[in-house]
């Protein structure tokens, strides 16, 4: 279904990254977290607030663009917009920023996400339907006690296990890899706290077939990223991290995490859409990727993403990830910062920071000569992805 794409490959770049500490109780407002993260990103980029003329965040973010801009003394915004579907919008923020910069609608765009997801409004709480088309749709599930993200995904995971023979241990290997990476990342919540597959298996059920350790943690924190043109990037302190591709996907029969009416539910066709666009835009193939940041809110969907993005065939992910292939030093290391299972759950934005560090060569679990990184956004929902690269 994906056809021509005229994404401005290589013409824009990420030039600054920033984050607050990751905690379970930040003790300050979500707006302050957004501001602090943005300040860190601006310092990293060697820019002043007055340089920024564009802001992008998530529709679910509680800190409005104008409050962030006013608080930081920005001198006016030319471009401000938001991405829908929670964590599915992570990489779409970069897509929008990149398109705006390339079109001349803005010069420097900050993408931010900040929340007290652990100490404040927790997304794992049962959803309460609201009077929107999506809320009405959600009622087909919440009424029967299928009301949390874990439960929505468990339904797909069970079918995937049934069709392809994947086991809970296969899901557990994703958690073990991410916790292994977090264990050597001082910024990770689970720094120096690796887990074993036995601990994964022994952890309590949340929604069978998902154990506690199949579910990412909940965190307080903020993350920001600065996007500008490749040309301006050359004058800034860090090695530019070029945006080779960025795409969104909502596939046929899409619902927000409950696309159960599709003939095949043991798949993520929206991620396949994103993958096809990214490969076309960047001119790359899965074999060109040095490491990946795969959205890991729940372990089973990491396996499904590997298949949909073309790293392995349908149903083969359990073999692909075996033998440490997704761990540091493996064939395709993923989530070297520890992911959301290990570092923090900031709707995937902390993964974008990690991708930038890998290409700059400044990551704690650095892949040698890392040039191309794939980053994905939340899955099950309409989603997005980016490919970042060292070369323009």
């Amino acid at each position, binding site marked *: 279904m994906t056809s021509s794409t005229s994404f401005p490959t290589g013409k824009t770049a990420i030039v600054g990254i920033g984050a607050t500490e990751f905690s379970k109780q930040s003790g300050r407002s979500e707006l302050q977290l957004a501001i602090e993260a943005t300040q860190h990103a601006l310092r990293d980029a060697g820019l002043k607030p007055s340089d920024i003329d564009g802001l992008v965040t998530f529709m679910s973010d509680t800190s409005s663009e104008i409050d962030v801009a006013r608080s930081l003394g920005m001198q006016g915004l030319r471009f401000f917009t938001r991405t829908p579907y929670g964590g599915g919008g992570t990489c779409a923020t970069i897509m929008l920023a990149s398109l705006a910069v390339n079109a001349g609608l803005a010069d420097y765009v900050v993408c931010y996400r900040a929340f007290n997801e652990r100490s404040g409004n927790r997304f794992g709480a*049962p959803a*309460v*339907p*609201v*009077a929107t*088309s999506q*809320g*009405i*749709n959600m*009622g*087909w*599930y*919440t*009424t*029967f*006690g*299928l*009301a949390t993200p874990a*439960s929505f995904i*468990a*339904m*797909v995971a*069970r*079918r995937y296990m*049934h069709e392809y023979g994947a086991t809970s241990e296969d899901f557990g290997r994703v958690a073990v890899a991410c916790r292994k990476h977090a264990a050597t990342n001082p910024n990770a919540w689970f720094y120096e706290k690796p887990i074993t597959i036995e601990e994964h298996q022994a952890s*309590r*059920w*949340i*929604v*069978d*077939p998902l154990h506690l350790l199949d579910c990412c943690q909940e965190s307080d924190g903020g993350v920001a990223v600065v996007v500008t043109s490749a040309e301006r990037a050359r004058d800034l302190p860090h090695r530019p991290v070029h945006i080779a591709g960025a795409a969104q996907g909502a596939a046929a*029969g899409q*619902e927000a995490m*409950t696309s*159960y*009416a599709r003939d095949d*539910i043991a798949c993520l066709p929206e991620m396949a859409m994103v993958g096809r666009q990214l490969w076309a835009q960047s001119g790359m193939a899965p074999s060109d990727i040095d490491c990946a940041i795969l959205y890991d809110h729940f372990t089973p969907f990491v396996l499904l993403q590997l298949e949909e993005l073309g790293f392995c065939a349908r149903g083969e992910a359990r073999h692909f990830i075996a033998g440490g292939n997704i761990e540091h030093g493996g064939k395709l290391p993923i989530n070297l910062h520890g992911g959301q299972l290990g570092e923090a759950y900031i709707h995937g934005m902390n993964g974008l920071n990690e991708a930038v560090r890998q290409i700059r060569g400044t990551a704690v679990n650095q892949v040698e000569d890392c040039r191309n990184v794939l980053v994905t956004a939340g899955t099950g929902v309409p989603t997005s992805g980016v490919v970042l690269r060292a070369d323009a």
Partner: protein
Amino acid sequence: MAEELTLNDSSRPDSGGDGAAPVTGSVVVDMGPVTAFDIARWSAALGLDLDPPRDGMAVPAAFLPALACAACEQGGLLPRLFGAGGEGVAPPQVIRIRTHLSGEIAVGQPVRVSLSAGPVEDYEESAVGAGRAVRIAAGISGDGGASSSIVELTILQRNAGPAPTGRSRWPQPLVANDNRFWWDGVDRGLLLIQRCKECGTLRHPPGPSCPACGSLSWDTVTASGRGTVHSFTINHSRLGDLPSPYVVGLIALDEGVRIVSNIVGIDPADVRIGMEVEVRFRPANSLERAMPLFVPADGDGILPACLGAETGLEPVDIELPAARVAGAAVAGNNLSPLHRDPAAARAAGYAATVLDLASAAAFAHDYLRRHDPGRIEMFEVAAGRPVLADTVLTIRGSRSGAHDFAITASTPLGGGFEAQFSIRDSETSK
């Protein structure tokens, strides 16, 4: 009229007594005869479907709760138990009635009521509110007191403040234009599937237009209710009346669409993909809509008792103008201002006057008699959120066992009550 009154008050909270018996009381009240006029006036005020009363026939069972309430009033028991009331508390109200029938009392015959009250105890938050409550057993006997029926009343002195908003135990769907037909179908015990009128394609979840051809015109087909489990989850949290963990299934109906619903009546560990299941309907209650649930097709096909039976009776609607609410209470000798004085009801936190529970019991009784005239052994009525005046009360019932009926009543504002009846010589259980 109080022939005898004792009250053990040695351990009032302020007496500092440690381990002593809490406040209890007993009183015997001679009520005089229940006349045909009393019954006729009461029946007319409630709009009940009763044979014209005359001396010698049995006092209707549904009148007994009102008689017990009247005896409490005449015996002066409540002020002794709860104190004078006033600021901080609402007037006492009956929140539960349990009636065991034994023998009969003839119209025109003097009635004696022996009341004995348990201790007044803290009553935790529920659909009716929180405060202090007492249980009173009323033994009601006719001439000579040979055999007596027992009416057990739970009376709550609710803490003042807005009436409880009530909370359903099951998450409730948001019902709007695009899904109302489906939930209306569930209310009628039907599992409907939306069908495109142009191309005939079935779709679920429903929506305004056909994904296959774009047509906005649709009708429905009634599903057979049979299907197979396409996937399922075992949820280790709480849902409504279900034991934890509970199962949510993705069920492929035989007609071709899929539906998410609970799979009940089976150990979660035994649920399998591909298993055949059949729909059952959990009846509505005062806070929750009726719901379709699925049971294994090769099981006994019965919903677990906690979910109610699937054999629904035809619902009835009862108009409740304020005058009827007041008239029903007064005709039942209940003079609490909550039922007849809007200002007093507002002061207690209610938006309007409130239907008294003895009258509610009579409505439930009347509803049941239309479906099964067998002899009632026991009935129990429990208040939910308040049934306010100037609304419509919808009463639904279902058979919950060979000799048992479950009745629920609800108003559009979320008020209601629940009742259970046990019947001997049930028509349909013969």
